[in-house]
C-alpha cells in the first residue's frame, strides 16, 4: 500500500515538477502563473490588462495573416456552393420577378389613374429635366442658410426652381447668376413652404428655424400632430409637386406644441444636388 502511494507521488512529482529537456519552467510553475494571471485578470489588475492589450495587438494581426488560407478555402467553398445552388436560386428569383412584375403592373395602373384624375381637376404637374449641380460653398451663417451651386442661367436654371437631395426636398433657387445659383435651404428662417402632414392629412406651412430643423406654422388646431408624422409638400401654390418627402415630426420640444421637423436630408453633408421645376400642363 505504502509502495503504491510512493509510486503515485513519484509519478506526480516527475510529471509536474521535473523540467523537460530545454524547458525553463516546470509545469507546476506555469500552472501557478496561469492561475495568478486568471485571478488578477478577474480583479481587473492593470498590468494584466496591459498584457492583454499587447497580446491582442499581436494576436489580431497574426490571426489576420494566419486566417488567409482558411479564408481562401472558405471563399472557394461558398463559390462552389453558389454554383451548385445556382439552379434553385434562379428558380426562386424568377418566381419573385414574376410576382414583382404583377405588382408593378398594379402600381402602373394606380399611377395612371392618379394622373388621369389630376388631369380632370387640372392639377397635374410635369417635372422638367433634372439638372445636377455640385455644391460650391455652403453659407452656414446664423442669419442665412443657403448654398451656392455651380450651375446658373447658362444651364437653364430659373428662379424658384425646386432643389432636391436624391428624393428629399432641400430648398429652392433664390438667386440665379450666369454660372452659379444660390439655394435657400428649408432650414432658413425665411423659408416657408406649403406642406401636408401625414397620416393626419393636415395642411400647413413649414418654416425654417435658422438652425438645423423646421417648425410647423399656422395650423388651426395645435397639438394634434403626432410624433413621427411625415411631412410632404402639399403642392399648394403650384411651385412644388405634391408628395415630395421633407422630414419627420419630432415631438420633444416644449416650446412648440406641434413639435419640430427633422429634415430627411442632412444639409451639412450636401455635395451634389438636383435642380428641377414643375409646370402645369395646359388642359386639352
Amino acid at each position, binding site marked *: 500500500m505504502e509502495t503504491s502511494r510512493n509510486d503515485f507521488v513519484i509519478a506526480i512529482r*516527475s510529471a509536474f515538477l521535473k523540467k523537460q529537456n530545454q*524547458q525553463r519552467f516546470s509545469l507546476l510553475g506555469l500552472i501557478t502563473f496561469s492561475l495568478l494571471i486568471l485571478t488578477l485578470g478577474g480583479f481587473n489588475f492593470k498590468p494584466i490588462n496591459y498584457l492583454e492589450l499587447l497580446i491582442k495587438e499581436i494576436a489580431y494581426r497574426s490571426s489576420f495573416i494566419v486566417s488567409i488560407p482558411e479564408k481562401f478555402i472558405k471563399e472557394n467553398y461558398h463559390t462552389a456552393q453558389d454554383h451548385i445552388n445556382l439552379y434553385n436560386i434562379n428558380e426562386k428569383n424568377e418566381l419573385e420577378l414574376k410576382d414583382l412584375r404583377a405588382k408593378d403592373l398594379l402600381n402602373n395602373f394606380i399611377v395612371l389613374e392618379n394622373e388621369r384624375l389630376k388631369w380632370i381637376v387640372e392639377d397635374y404637374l410635369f417635372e422638367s429635366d433634372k439638372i445636377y449641380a455640385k455644391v460650391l460653398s455652403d453659407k452656414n451663417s446664423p442669419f442665412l442658410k443657403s448654398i451656392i451651386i455651380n450651375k446658373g442661367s447658362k444651364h437653364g436654371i430659373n428662379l424658384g426652381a425646386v432643389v432636391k437631395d436624391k428624393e428629399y426636398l432641400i430648398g429652392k433657387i433664390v438667386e440665379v447668376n450666369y454660372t452659379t445659383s444660390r439655394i435657400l435651404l428649408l432650414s432658413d428662417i425665411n423659408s416657408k413652404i406649403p406642406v401636408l402632414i401625414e397620416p393626419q392629412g393636415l395642411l400647413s406651412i413649414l418654416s425654417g428655424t435658422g438652425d438645423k430643423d423646421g417648425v410647423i406654422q399656422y395650423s388651426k388646431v395645435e397639438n394634434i400632430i403626432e410624433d413621427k408624422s411625415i411631412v410632404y409638400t402639399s403642392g399648394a401654390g403650384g411651385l412644388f409637386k405634391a408628395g415630395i418627402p421633407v422630414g419627420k415630426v419630432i415631438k420633444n420640444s416644449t416650446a412648440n406644441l406641434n413639435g419640430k421637423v427633422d429634415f430627411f436630408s442632412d444639409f451639412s453633408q450636401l455635395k451634389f444636388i438636383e435642380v428641377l421645376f414643375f409646370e402645369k400642363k395646359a388642359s386639352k
Partner: protein
Amino acid sequence: MKLKNKELKKKLLQQLPLILLFISVLNNFDFNYLELKYFSFNFSYILIFYFSLKRSYSLGYTYIFIAGLFNDVVNGSPIGMSSLMYLFLCGVAAYLRVITLRTSLFKDWMTFIGAILVLNSLSFIIVNLFFGFEISFINQIVNIFFTSLLYLLFSSFINLFMSNLDVR
C-alpha cells in the same frame, strides 16, 4: 547546399507541432465555415495531449502557456484560462507517460476523454461562476464528443506522418 536544405527541412519539421498549435489557436481551426450547427472540436487539445504524451520534446510548456494566452485573446475568454487548461492537459499526459510501460491507443484515448471531461467542467465552473459568462451546454457536449472522437483519427494520422518522417 543540399545538406543545408536538409537541415532546414528537418528543423522545420521539428517545429511543425508548434506551428500547428499556433495556427489552430489563432485561426480557431474547427471547420466553422461548413456552417454545421452541431459540429465543433478543439484541435488544440488533441495536439497538446498527443505531443505531450508521445513526443514531449516537440512542444515546450512555455510555448503551450503562450498559445493559451493567445487563444484566450482570440476567443474572448478570461486571460489565463486556456493556458491553465492546456497545462493541466500536459500534466495528465506527463503523468500517463510516466506510469505507462506499454502504450496502447485505447488507454490513451480513455485518459484523454476523462481529461477533457474534467477540463471542460472546470472551465465551465470558472467561466460561469467566477466570471459570469453564459456557455451553452449543448455546444460544450458536442465539442467534447467530437474532440474525443477525432482524437483517434488525428493521433493515428500524426503517428503515421511522424513515423514516416522519423523526426527527432
